[in-house]
């Protein structure tokens, strides 16, 4: 268990097999390796990410649905010496809060935003998200998502990259490759530590509860289905 995890709130509140735990494990390891536990502030969204409100041995604030980016931006602007992390789901980041994410990227806010993409709204019981895949059944696309009426999955990482500066760090990782995901998150945090600019990591994540998948199906969804629409890699890496 990473040093920066708060052991006495474990087991955490995520469901069995939830990808949030893995994304936050990578984040915890990155924080440990960078030795920034003493100056990092963690913000989480409404969505299952809220279940991490007491997850870390970090000062933390759980905000409103989609509003973690501005809260964390507000903290960073007021105290630029802090390392500020905004953690959110795809609903919070790409739907209700997309104006905040885009504007933070466009203004080159010196924060790190991490977004767990589990292709639907998990906390509310599995509705369509901008990331839901064509044909995927959710509670609001009971007959499968029809791109003709609801569009294709949003390429959020690419969108964020399109409004970011060259110096920004923008990447998409996956819990299918944890070493890489951790390295992306670490680079994102370094971008902030070096005051280079905005950083953003989308993490392909899993929600076995709403996907109604067993372990094998869960891995299949993450490893085989999601990459069809969501390309893993670094889009802006300031090298």
């Amino acid at each position: 268990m990473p040093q920066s995890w708060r052991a006495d709130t474990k087991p955490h509140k995520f469901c069995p097999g939830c990808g949030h735990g893995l994304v936050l494990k990578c984040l915890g390891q990155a924080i440990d390796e960078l030795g920034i536990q003493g100056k990092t502030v963690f913000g989480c969204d409404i969505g299952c990410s809220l279940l991490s409100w007491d997850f870390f041995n970090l000062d933390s604030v759980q905000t409103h649905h989609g509003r973690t980016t501005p809260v964390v931006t507000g903290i960073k602007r007021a105290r630029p010496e802090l390392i500020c992390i905004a953690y959110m789901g795809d609903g919070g980041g790409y739907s209700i809060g997309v104006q905040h994410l885009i504007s933070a990227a466009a203004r080159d806010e010196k924060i790190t935003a991490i977004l767990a993409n589990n292709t639907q709204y998990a906390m509310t019981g599995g509705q369509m998200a901008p990331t839901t895949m064509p044909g995927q059944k959710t509670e609001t696309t009971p007959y499968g998502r029809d791109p003709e009426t609801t569009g294709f999955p949003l390429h959020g990482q690419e969108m964020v990259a399109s409004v970011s500066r060259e110096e920004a760090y923008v990447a998409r990782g996956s819990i299918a490759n944890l070493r890489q995901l951790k390295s992306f998150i670490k680079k994102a945090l370094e971008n902030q530590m070096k005051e280079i600019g905005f950083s953003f990591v989308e993490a392909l994540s899993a929600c076995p509860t709403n996907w109604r998948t067993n372990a094998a199906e869960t891995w299949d969804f993450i490893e085989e289905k999601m990459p069809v629409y969501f390309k893993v890699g670094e889009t802006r890496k300031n090298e």
Partner: protein
Amino acid sequence: MTMEFQPRTQELEKGYFTLFPGLCKGCGLCIEKCPKKSLGWSDVLGVYGTPSVRANSDCIACGICRDVCPDCAIHIEKKVKH
């Protein structure tokens, strides 16, 4: 803060496989990822009252199960070769 979870350690040929039933939610992600298919359900119940995980002797202590566990319920120690 210290971890207060009860570890259950299996000594195996290549290493020590430790599971914390108090952390294991029985999701099965680790079982799927074991390259040796050496993991399976145990009679010991995990935190949600579902079976937790145990290894058999095929375990090579590669640590993949530990890495993929979202709950950090597995600890692996490789035996040092002499």
